[in-house]
């Protein structure tokens, strides 16, 4: 059976705070944190004027598509870094994002829309600080907004 919808705001707060911690911990990392290849990640930008006009399926597609991109980028980044402590950090971040995936799944974010959606807007990153910044802003932005609305609907 699918996990019950999770609307405990403390859960996302914990994931977000940990994402910010990871971002700050690695923020100063320069040379050894450059990747040898370019990773594609979701754009984190949210324009509230546009977001509130978007239908739920489009929002879900953006969040779910972005989530998949970010998971793949974190997994690839872990293979690209050589420093064991950095790899460890990325492992924890990856594990947390898997947890977020399940929270989204519990709100049917993965339901495929009737017509294939436009691919989510993307960015290219080539450094670890930028990747972790995208991760943190993606969670604070699109993921949390989607869940806030989902929980409002569930409650009603």
């Amino acid at each position, binding site marked *: 059976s699918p996990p019950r919808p999770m609307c405990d*705001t403390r859960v996302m*707060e914990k994931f*977000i*705070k940990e994402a*910010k911690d990871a971002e700050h911990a690695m923020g100063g990392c320069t040379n050894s944190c450059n990747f040898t290849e370019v990773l594609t990640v979701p*754009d*984190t*930008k*949210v*324009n*509230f*004027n*546009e977001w*509130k006009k978007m239908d739920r399926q489009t929002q879900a597609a953006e969040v779910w598509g972005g989530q998949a991109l970010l998971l793949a980028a974190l997994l690839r980044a872990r293979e690209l870094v050589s420093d064991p402590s950095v790899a460890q950090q990325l492992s924890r971040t990856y594990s947390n994002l898997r947890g977020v995936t399940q929270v989204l799944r519990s709100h049917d974010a993965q339901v495929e829309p009737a017509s294939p959606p436009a691919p989510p807007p993307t*960015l290219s990153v080539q450094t670890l600080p930028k990747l972790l910044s995208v991760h943190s*802003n*993606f969670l*604070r*932005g*699109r993921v*949390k*907004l989607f869940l*806030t609305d989902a929980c409002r609907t569930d409650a009603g």
Partner: protein
Amino acid sequence: TQEGSGPSDDFNTQAALLLNEEPLDPKCFTRCLEDLTCFWESRDPPNPLDYGFFYVVEGDTPQHCNLSVGRTPWNTVRFSCIFPPQDTPSFTSLHLRAYISNSSNIVHARTIMVNQVVLLDPPSNLTARATETPGQLAVRWQPPYLRYLESSLRHEVAFAAEGAEPQMVDIPDGHTECLILNLQGRTRYTLAVRVRPDGVSYSGYWSAWSASVTVVT
């Protein structure tokens, strides 16, 4: 007050709050996340007043913004840019540059995120009433309405007996009521409340204080 349309009639109030709290220029604030206003003030602006302003939304092309110019009650000149609603993105970097026209002299440069410069309207409908237990006040108020910020708000209640220094109580997690204990009996207290985002997904500045109320314990 206007909703979501940049600075309100209270622009001077908001500017005064930011001048107090924010050392960097240009100072920026959003009232409902769908608007953004940036400004800076100067005692000795160049003459003619020929500043220019542009901004870059990460991954986008630079955009020029027409500056409004006006004199403030505290006798400075304020230069301000009200962003068009499509260029107020949260959760991404927004690069800002103010320069002197006909030159490439940057006078102010700053990078912000809209979700980190939230300046809310003050809470309203503050009420305080003495409870049955002497020396206690039950306090409640209405937070400013923002769909996505409800549980991410942090309030601060100030209370003071007549002639005494005010004391502060921190109210976390979007709660909008509290019980103040251990007050002096039969004393007149004045209270007010203000609000800001809790800093996790949204951050910014303390709002103005609400209208104050007075109550006898």
